[in-house]
């Protein structure tokens, strides 16, 4: 049997939800949670241990967490690492991508991660890790596990993989020559006919938007500044029902000259982190108190009396790009010259 180690976040390892997201790296015996389903699918591969880490802990202490996880991993003498599936979770996907990459680079063992194609972990892996494609949320678990098992088996056996769409992994940016049965002219016509029939598939993955950094603000003491957040900060009771995950839009709220975001009058509805500290003091997410002080002191010119909010949690890139474009258009119309944006 080939020895495999499985990486999970605190939630899937059964250590707790967001309240346990600060859990440091931990080792558990054998397969745990989705690892049990994975183990049942695997042929000739045994999950000897599970490593887990809280999503917040990993994100906030990447290097420490990686070093500790690598120590645990080495002690198991594994021949394979499997991480995830992380679906659309950014923090978890980041951890899966980094531990997989580190395992391959430092221990020289094959590694497989699993996540949705829009997970930021895909860019972190940057083609250096094989990633099984999954749905955007946990509803895709049943489909993900057999796919992961087949890819894991291919990795340990050295079987050459077919194209991404056929095997269910995300394109890594390689091109491989292959012999086609038909000549180019015939294949071009086949592609044209497929396109006319509405099949416009492409092997080329979409990427994140890159924009050049705007030039710096000339004089902040005269500038109009705005506050924007993806931390799901809304008036208490969430009157406009901002979703806790996969928001389809953004909201704007007047500040009415308030000196700070009063606890009890504002709250966070973000479903991707423990909001208790934020609800104790919402200025921890949207720094209205400090910005008002800096305006009074003359360090900043004026504050735009409206703040913009959404939940950046499981949000598809296309949707997030649209929110950004729409909010930016409003800010530009209002003459805003600088923005403080917070992310969680």
């Amino acid at each position, binding site marked *: 049997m080939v020895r495999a180690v499985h990486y999970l976040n605190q939630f899937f390892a059964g250590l707790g939800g967001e309240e346990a*997201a600060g859990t440091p790296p931990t080792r558990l015996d054998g397969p745990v949670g989705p690892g049990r389903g994975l183990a049942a699918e695997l042929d000739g591969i045994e999950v000897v241990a599970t490593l887990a880490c809280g*999503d*917040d802990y990993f*994100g*906030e202490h*990447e290097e420490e967490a990686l070093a500790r996880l690598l120590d645990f991993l080495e002690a198991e003498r594994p021949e394979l690492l499997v991480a995830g599936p992380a679906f659309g979770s*950014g*923090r978890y996907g*980041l951890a899966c991508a*980094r531990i997989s990459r580190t395992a391959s680079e430092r221990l020289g063992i094959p590694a497989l991660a699993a996540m949705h194609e829009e997970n*930021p972990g895909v*860019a*972190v892996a940057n083609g250096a890790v094989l990633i099984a494609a999954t749905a955007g949320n946990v509803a895709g678990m049943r489909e993900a596990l057999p796919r992961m098992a087949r890819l894991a088996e291919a990795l340990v056996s050295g079987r050459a993989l077919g194209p991404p769409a056929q095997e269910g992994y995300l394109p890594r940016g390689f091109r491989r020559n292959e012999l086609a049965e038909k000549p180019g002219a015939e294949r071009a016509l086949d592609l044209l006919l497929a396109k006319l029939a509405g099949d416009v598939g492409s092997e080329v993955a979409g990427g*994140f*938007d*890159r*924009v*050049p*950094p*705007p*030039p*710096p*603000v000339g004089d*902040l003491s005269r500038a109009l500044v705005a506050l*924007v957040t993806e*931390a799901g900060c809304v008036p208490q009771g969430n009157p406009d029902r901002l979703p806790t995950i996969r928001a389809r839009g953004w909201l704007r709220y007047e500040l009415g000259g308030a000196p700070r975001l009063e606890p009890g009058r504002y709250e966070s509805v973000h479903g991707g*982190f*423990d*909001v*208790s*500290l*934020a609800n104790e*003091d919402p*200025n*921890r*997410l*949207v*720094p209205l*108190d*400090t*910005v008002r*002080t*800096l305006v009074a002191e003359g*360090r*900043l010119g004026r504050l735009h009396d409206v703040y913009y909010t959404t939940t950046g949690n499981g949000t598809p*890139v296309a949707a997030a790009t649209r929110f950004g474009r729409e909010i*930016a258009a409003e*800010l*530009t119309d209002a003459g*805003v*010259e*600088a*923005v*403080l*944006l*917070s*992310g*969680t």
Partner: protein
Amino acid sequence: MGVPTVFVTSLPTIATMVGANRIVRGPAITHPFGLDEAERRRIVERALEMLETEVEPTTVWEVDPA
């Protein structure tokens, strides 16, 4: 041109990957702008300094400890 924006987050790796240009590392996912006003002021001031600075794409700045 765009509006100069500084992104305060405790996950600069993700911010970098998605292409944010001015990034300041906040102390934690649950409170990117710090726990108290003194800490918040250090973070906001660092962010403002970054808005006043010419940067390369995806630049990450740390906040000076108290």
